[in-house]
């Protein structure tokens, strides 16, 4: 598959809240599910700190953001620096919808893991959709 089908995944990873942990675990679960060389994680702090390589990657490839809370740092950051996310997910919204609350920032617990699984499914679906349509839509 050509490089033009790379998809960038940006998780907030917010340290303050359990939902930040859910966002990063969900991303890695999606990686495990897809087993695809087409998805690449972008380090949000590095992107925000102005790393040219990270920014160019986001400008050139479709991006999916996963935010932990309504502050939507990942989505806002991508938009602020010239990117447009193809899809955005907010963990706290999905948490409300499903009633699955993570136990803590370190140990997600059964419900938190299940929440991460559900979000990973959503990421996987979105990446597959983007890849099947191609990047140049």
């Amino acid at each position, binding site marked *: 598959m050509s490089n033009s089908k790379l998809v960038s995944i940006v998780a907030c990873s917010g*340290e303050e809240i359990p939902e930040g942990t859910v966002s990063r675990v969900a991303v*890695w679960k999606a990686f495990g599910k897809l087993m695809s060389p087409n998805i690449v994680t972008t380090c949000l*702090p590095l992107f925000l700190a102005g790393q040219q390589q990270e920014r160019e990657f986001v400008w050139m490839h479709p991006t999916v953001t996963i935010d932990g809370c309504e502050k939507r740092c990942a989505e806002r950051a991508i938009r602020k620096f010239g990117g447009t996310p193809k899809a955005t997910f907010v963990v706290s919204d999905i948490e409300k919808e499903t009633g699955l609350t993570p136990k803590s920032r370190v140990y997600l617990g059964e419900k938190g893991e299940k929440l991460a699984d559900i979000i990973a499914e959503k990421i996987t679906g979105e990446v597959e959709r983007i890849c099947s349509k191609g990047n140049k839509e």
Partner: protein
Amino acid sequence: MNQEKKEKILVIPCSGIGKPSGTISRLATYYVVEDLLPKETDTVCLPLLVIGDEKTCQLVQQSPVIAVDGCPSKCATKSVQASQGKLFASLNVLQLYRDHLQLEVKSVVDPGPEGEKFARIVAGKILEEISKIRKEEEKCLIPS
């Protein structure tokens, strides 16, 4: 100095998602702020700081900060500096790892038992920096 008067020390990890060292920085921070010194320390979201959230920027300007970076890009350190935060110390997980190469850090999601052990070592380094901050604070209280 009374415990109540002590400012909470902020420990800010990079939490980089691409490398296990980011996970170690995060885990070490949680060992300190949740298990070891919950009353004396706290953490804030690094992305929130970098996007310029007013409350978070104020916090890092008012409290002593220990940044825990996972790679040479030093995002946590640079972000605290850019926010004019009170950066007291800057730790680098990769640098610390040079002395513990025998410990295998498994992966980003699951650092494994040896990764957790290394995270506890990093937590120990954070505690050393916290002691230094407290000593500095005590010095300031002693009249010259």
